[in-house]
């Protein structure tokens, strides 16, 4: 599609541009929703920054974990280890790792500045599918995370992609995931208009996305995702996240109490 775009004589990857655009949009939406939920706008933006840092670190760590077996199997072919380490650090992210990192970043922020962690999570949760949706458009432009081969008009040729096969039409599963994420964003935004019990939105998001992702993985065709037994890494994580999401959704008070007893700081100066 369009892996790079030229701005002012310099080439920029569309993937990173889309991610940054999604994050910027997400921060704006969070800042707009914050006052009605008893948070300062700056708390929404700053906790979003912590989430972004967590997203980068978590996405990278899980990516390295998934790619480790491949690297180990081909260790004899590695002639320039320094260059490989550089490439590994700079390219490639796994969404689920980023999600866990982002949630950890928000929890860290809440703990550091004595805010109600679950309410903060519910403030920022609707933004996650928005960032993800825009990011998947970036994947489509880059030609990564592609789907199974299908005939046109449902299949697309990724002729400019660095990774996708050029000689076959592939299902644009990135766009499907983007559309579903936008739908999820709309649902969460709609449900988030009224005050809900703590953890409701996060639980709903985790449950719905785990189901969506589990199904979407069957449409994926890129082999570099990593797999174990008959399921991909993301499907295993979905299987783990679904009960966590349902637990948060149905037993949210228990979850909030569990967090408070185990992780929360002593002082709570949240405006809630």
């Amino acid at each position, binding site marked *: 599609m369009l*892996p790079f775009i030229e701005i002012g004589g310099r080439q*920029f*990857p569309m*993937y*990173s*541009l889309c*991610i*940054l655009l999604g994050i910027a949009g997400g921060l704006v939406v969070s800042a707009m929703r914050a006052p009605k939920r008893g948070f300062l706008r*700056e708390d929404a933006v*700053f906790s979003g*920054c*912590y989430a972004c*840092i967590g997203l*980068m670190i978590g996405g990278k760590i899980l*990516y390295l974990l998934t*790619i480790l077996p*491949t*690297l180990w199997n*081909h260790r004899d*072919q*590695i002639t320039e280890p320094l260059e*490989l380490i*550089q*490439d*590994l*650090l*700079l*390219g*490639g*992210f796994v969404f689920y790792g980023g999600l866990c990192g982002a949630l950890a970043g928000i929890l860290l922020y809440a703990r*550091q*500045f004595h805010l109600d962690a679950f309410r903060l999570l519910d403030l920022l949760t609707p933004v996650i599918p928005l960032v993800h949706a825009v990011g998947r458009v*970036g*994947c489509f432009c*880059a*030609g*990564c*995370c592609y789907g199974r081969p299908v005939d046109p008009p449902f299949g697309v040729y990724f002729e400019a*992609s*660095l*990774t996708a096969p050029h000689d076959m039409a592939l299902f644009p599963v990135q766009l499907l995931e983007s559309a579903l994420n936008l739908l999820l964003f709309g649902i969460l935004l709609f449900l988030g208009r009224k005050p809900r019990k703590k953890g409701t939105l996060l639980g709903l998001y985790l449950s719905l996305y785990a189901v969506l992702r589990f199904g979407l993985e069957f449409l994926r065709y*890129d082999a*570099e995702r990593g797999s174990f037994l008959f399921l991909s890494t993301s499907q295993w994580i979905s299987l783990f996240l679904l009960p966590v999401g349902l637990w948060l959704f149905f037993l949210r008070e228990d979850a909030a109490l569990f967090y408070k007893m185990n992780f929360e700081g002593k002082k709570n100066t949240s405006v809630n």
Partner: protein
Amino acid sequence: MENKTNGMAVGSLVLGILGILCSFFSFLGAVAYLVGIILGIIGLILGISAKKQQPCGMATAGIVLSIIAIVLCAISLVACVACVACVGGIASEM
């Protein structure tokens, strides 16, 4: 306490500026961008901590510059495909 907060704000400002400078060192390769991202992240955390403890213009400036540094460096580097291509290259050599 005041000195500590000011120290964090100054640190954030300095790291933000250094991070932005790193984004212009393209001749040093990807390492400069990576260093820029790390400096930006540390600067951002310091700036947020300083601003939450004692709001001041220097902390705000540090936060803004750190965010600019992260964006400038990340935009040049973060590619979904780079590493996959590299590993794919290794696999195809077999």
